């Protein structure tokens, strides 16, 4: 006899109650939308280099800034979250997802005030990215510098 609330088989028994994940469709959507955002980024970069004569590094920075501005505005209009529900990781992984997490966290807590709400919660989700980014960059940087010293 199968006991449904048997804790040993809980995850197995629960499986039939969970919605099945459309792996292929999700990946296809992520691929198409993620790729499209990168193509937009590439177009912006080419525009900054060829029409406004920026160096490649500056054009890259301007491209991220532009994408972040677009993403913040779309989040404000409530469009980005609808798009994110559809595109999955295609909207999460590009830098626009980072801007979306900052803007939406700030918007959500707007009711608590400008200092305690918006400013305090701005990095609620994006803080993890910055913390792990900085920690890993310092550790990897020290490792690389150490290796380069050894090779000299």
């Amino acid at each position, binding site marked *: 006899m199968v006991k449904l609330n048997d804790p040993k088989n809980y995850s197995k028994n629960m499986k039939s109650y969970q919605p099945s994940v459309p792996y292929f469709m999700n990946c296809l959507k992520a691929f198409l939308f993620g790729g499209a955002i990168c193509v937009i980024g590439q177009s*912006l*970069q080419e525009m900054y280099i060829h029409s406004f004569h920026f160096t490649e590094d500056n054009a890259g920075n301007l491209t991220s800034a532009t994408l972040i501005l677009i993403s913040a505005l779309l989040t404000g209009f409530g469009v980005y979250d609808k798009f994110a529900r559809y595109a999955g990781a295609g909207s999460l992984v590009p830098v626009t997802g980072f801007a979306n997490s*900052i803007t939406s966290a700030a918007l959500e807590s707007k009711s608590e005030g400008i200092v305690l709400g918006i400013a305090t919660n701005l990095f609620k989700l994006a803080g993890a990215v910055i913390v*792990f980014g900085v920690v890993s960059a310092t550790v990897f940087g020290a490792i690389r510098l150490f290796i380069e010293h050894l090779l000299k």
Partner: protein
Amino acid sequence: MIFLYAFLVGGLICVVGQLLLDVFKLTPAHVIVSFTVIGAALDVFSIYDKLIEFAGAGASVPITSFGHSLLHGAMAEGHEHGYIGILMGVFKLTSAGITSAILFGFIVALIFKPKG
């Protein structure tokens, strides 16, 4: 041609993210954190540089390039000033991204009303 490579590489990086979400059941926060760390890790041996050379924005728009630029800034100062330079340089290249994200996020949150 760079547009095609940007589309393919950028799309594939997002597919990896989608698989982490669906198959390994990671939360979105875990996915972007892993991507940042992976981006920095790939730059230790300058692998990510080659990817950016090959795919342009396909590699520089995904969040992996954030980790890559953090390490790049750290290394640039590290070469000049030694280990202390790492602390000085981490935010050097990502300043534009972080500053604009804070600025635009703050302004949008001030102006717009939360939806839903």
